[in-house]
């Protein structure tokens, strides 16, 4: 299975190999029922090493790091930490040993301050007297300034990630695990994060970096362990491999390049939004100001921007979960010539729209329900699904199977709970559930957030195909690479306002990145000053 694995190159990777490894996994194996999530994985990481863990959806990356962090118990195999055999039975123990982890989804309380959030997460015996000051100094020291008194709700996603990182740093980790950390960051923020990680590595901390962005892996890490279908297929020196080689190792097949789409011929305008404004509901929301956009048949409009700039508010307004309540709100949203401003999500679906909101768990899908029940969520209006108020289970099951088959959703059983699918597979399911209906207009938000390259590519291809068949697609995304890959037109959402719309071929990623990042850099200067004052 490792025919292509250039194992020998790893041997000369770094001088650090001379020293004793920090953590070694021997034959780590974990099964869930019939599904072997990790099979006989050997793994080594050295102190001060920047090490990537690469793999497709369901390749077993999450399972593997959960075993290291004490969230899962291996069926077979064992770990050695600093030369001693250890059993890590829970995250508390992992943290006490010096293993820190920054999860993909943060576990922060919006209504508490930075210092309060960190105080909650630290072990009980950690001294808390000068915590605020400690946070200010530590964060400033690593160039990721945080004001300990800020409410988490007021922070950008990138700043929230800093809170998680600083929480780990306070416990002086020997190994820091970062699960897809860059998927929420601007290019500028990513650079900043990399500086922190490199600095940590220089100080002797090992960093296990999980990402599907091959550019970043090549840029940051020196070695990579590549998993495919639960098996380690290669351990490589990342500098010796091209992006394409890495991708092929990971996917196990030749990678097909996607062509940037050419702008379609003049076609009919499908969806028009005119002068849409929305006041902020509360302190944690962003007001939308005078949103104007339109999208034509066959066209993909990319809305770039950093999370927290009104994306979820805009998405709610487009799906109809939020509708303007003031009078004369007519004709703000039109499908063709029809006014759909006042229609509910169900009404808009009947009119020919389809939506995929950003949050898979509890919004686009219900984790505690089966896939067939999740099909019902947006499909109860379709033929034969509900008769006389009763659900036709055979029909929903058939639809769910069809979606899984068409969109390559890998699932542990025939009609599993949505919660038993990996993030990428569930995302393929919710995107597939909408695309399979061939809607006139598909509106998606962060379609590949937290999804690895194989699944992301799959989802993007499916959206591009849908546009080719004459549908219009609006894609709200933080991932510039994704936007440049498939969008024909780009606009940027910043502080609740849209920028002008640009043709993809007329604008550079740097220019868009600047439009995205303007207000954030201003924020940084403020918190840098504050942190400086308080430390």
């Amino acid at each position, binding site marked *: 299975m490792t025919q292509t694995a250039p194992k020998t190159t790893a041997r000369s990777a770094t001088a650090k190999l001379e020293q004793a490894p920090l953590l070694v996994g021997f034959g780590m194996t974990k099964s*869930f*029922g019939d599904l072997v999530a990790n099979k006989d994985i050997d793994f080594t990481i050295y102190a001060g090493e920047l090490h990537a863990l690469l793999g497709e959806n369901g390749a077993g990356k999450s399972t593997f790091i959960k075993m290291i962090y004490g969230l*899962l118990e291996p069926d077979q195999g064992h770990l050695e930490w600093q030369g001693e055999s250890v059993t890590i*039975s*829970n995250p*508390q*123990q992992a*943290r*006490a*040993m*010096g293993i820190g982890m920054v999860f993909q989804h943060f576990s922060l309380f919006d209504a508490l301050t930075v210092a309060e959030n960190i105080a909650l997460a630290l*072990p*009980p*015996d950690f001294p808390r007297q000068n915590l605020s000051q400690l946070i200010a100094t530590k964060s400033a020291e690593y160039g990721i300034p945080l004001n300990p008194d800020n409410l988490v709700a007021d922070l950008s996603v990138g700043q929230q990630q800093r809170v998680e990182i600083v929480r780990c740093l306070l*416990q*002086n980790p*020997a190994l820091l695990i970062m699960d897809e950390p860059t998927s929420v960051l601007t290019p500028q923020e990513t650079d900043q994060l990399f500086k922190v990680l490199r600095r940590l590595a220089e100080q002797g901390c090992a960093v296990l970096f999980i990402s599907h962005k091959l550019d970043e892996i090549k840029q940051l890490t020196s070695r990579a362990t590549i998993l495919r279908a639960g098996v380690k297929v290669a351990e490589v020196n990342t500098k010796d491999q091209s992006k394409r080689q890495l991708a092929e190792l990971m996917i196990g097949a030749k990678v097909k390049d996607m062509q940037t789409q050419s702008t379609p011929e003049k076609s009919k305008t499908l969806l028009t939004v005119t002068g849409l404004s929305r006041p902020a509901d509360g302190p944690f929301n962003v007001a939308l100001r005078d949103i104007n956009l339109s999208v034509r048949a066959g066209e993909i409009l990319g809305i770039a921007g950093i999370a927290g700039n009104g994306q979820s508010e805009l998405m709610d307004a487009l*799906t*109809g*979960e939020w509708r303007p309540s003031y009078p004369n709100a007519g004709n703000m949203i039109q499908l063709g010539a029809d006014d759909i401003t006042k229609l*509910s*999500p*169900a*009404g808009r*679906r009947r009119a020919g729209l389809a*939506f995929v*909101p950003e*949050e898979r768990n*509890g*919004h*686009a*899908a*219900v*984790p*505690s*329900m089966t896939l067939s*029940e999740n099909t*019902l*969520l*947006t499909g*109860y209006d379709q033929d034969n699904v*509900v008769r006389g*108020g*009763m*659900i036709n*289970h055979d029909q929903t099951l058939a639809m769910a199977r069809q979606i899984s088959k068409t969109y390559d959703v890998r699932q542990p059983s025939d009609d599993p709970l949505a919660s038993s699918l990996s993030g990428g597979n569930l995302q393929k399911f919710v995107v597939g559930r909408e695309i399979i209906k061939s809607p006139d207009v598909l509106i998606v938000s962060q379609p590949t957030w937290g999804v690895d390259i194989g699944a992301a590519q799959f989802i993007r291809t499916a959206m591009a195909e849908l546009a080719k068949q004459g549908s219009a697609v609006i894609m709200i995304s933080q991932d510039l690479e994704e936007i440049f890959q498939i969008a024909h037109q780009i606009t940027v959402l910043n502080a609740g306002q849209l920028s002008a719309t640009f043709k993809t071929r007329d604008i550079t990623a740097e220019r868009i990145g600047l439009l995205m990042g303007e207000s954030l850099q201003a924020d940084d200067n403020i918190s840098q000053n504050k942190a400086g004052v308080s430390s």
Partner: protein
Amino acid sequence: MIMLQKRKDVPTYLTIAVPLLSILVTLLMGALIFAMLGYPPLQALYEFFIAPLSRPDQIGNLFVKACPLIIISTGLIFCFRANVWNIGAEGQLILGAMGAGWVALSFPEAESRMLIIGMAVMAMLAGALWGAIPGLLKVKFKTNEILVSLMLTYIAIFLVDWTVRSPWRDPMAFGFPLTKAYPDAGLIPLMSLPGIGRLGQLHWGVPVALLVAIGGWFYLSRSLGGYQIKLMGDAPRAGRFAGFSQSWVTMFVMMLSGALAGLAGMIEVSANIGMLQPQISFGYGFTAIIVAFLARLNPLAAIAAGLVVALAELGGDAAQISMRIPKVVTGIFNGILLFMLLAGETLTHYRIVWIRSAEKGGKSHG
């Protein structure tokens, strides 16, 4: 330090063994309490759980006792599944009984069976309206339905008290706070089972209760309406995304559970009392909350859970008569049983982990 850690996989044997174990532990705890109170524990347990089932007529009475519990808890299960916390079923029951009483007392000469239908309809309407109040306040003003529905229960208790003492009092009742007796057409007759005949006080309200539970289960598990209710309970945001209205679901479950509690009130009065009096219910509206949770919010299981709780109630009566064990022990039993089942449920999904402080302190600076 003790911590609860979520189990990744719940073994199948646990889901079967734990409820049985919970009941076993409840019995052991009960025996212990009896022993501590100075009663022979085995005899007390026998009086509590076996004696009430030793004759066929007692089985009929058990179903009679369970009847209002099953009907009310079915309604409450709809609420709780939708994450709407109706605690005021007792008040809705009372209003239902009053609604039915108003119909019965308005047609004292009625002989048609239509009377009882009219009473049932009015009972459900009155209960639904009483349930609609906390629902409406929640939807319109975001008030807490727990508080409002509970407060409305006290209003209902005093309302029926006043009604039977003043406007509706039977002038021939020698000053007792009672209404006139309902006409015969407004009473629920005893059931005669084919081949067995009458079984204690078993009346036609019992099959209605079973139908309500079965119908509730069917609606909740098979219909789009039931799906909406579960969806709003599990993931309200997904529910709004699907295009359902949270307000509508809240009003629906509040009114449905109010209507069912009202129906239970009408059945209770028409089958067992025959007139309105200050005391109609024996806390059925509150006990039904326990039944709903014992049934793990499944209407079919509410039949069994209703019977178990009814057995503890009857056992309490029996033990009080034969062994002079105070009736409050019934409440203690219900409490222990609920506690054990919930604890068992928690331990099915979580494991207890001991964290030694030495383990933490030892290496944290490493």
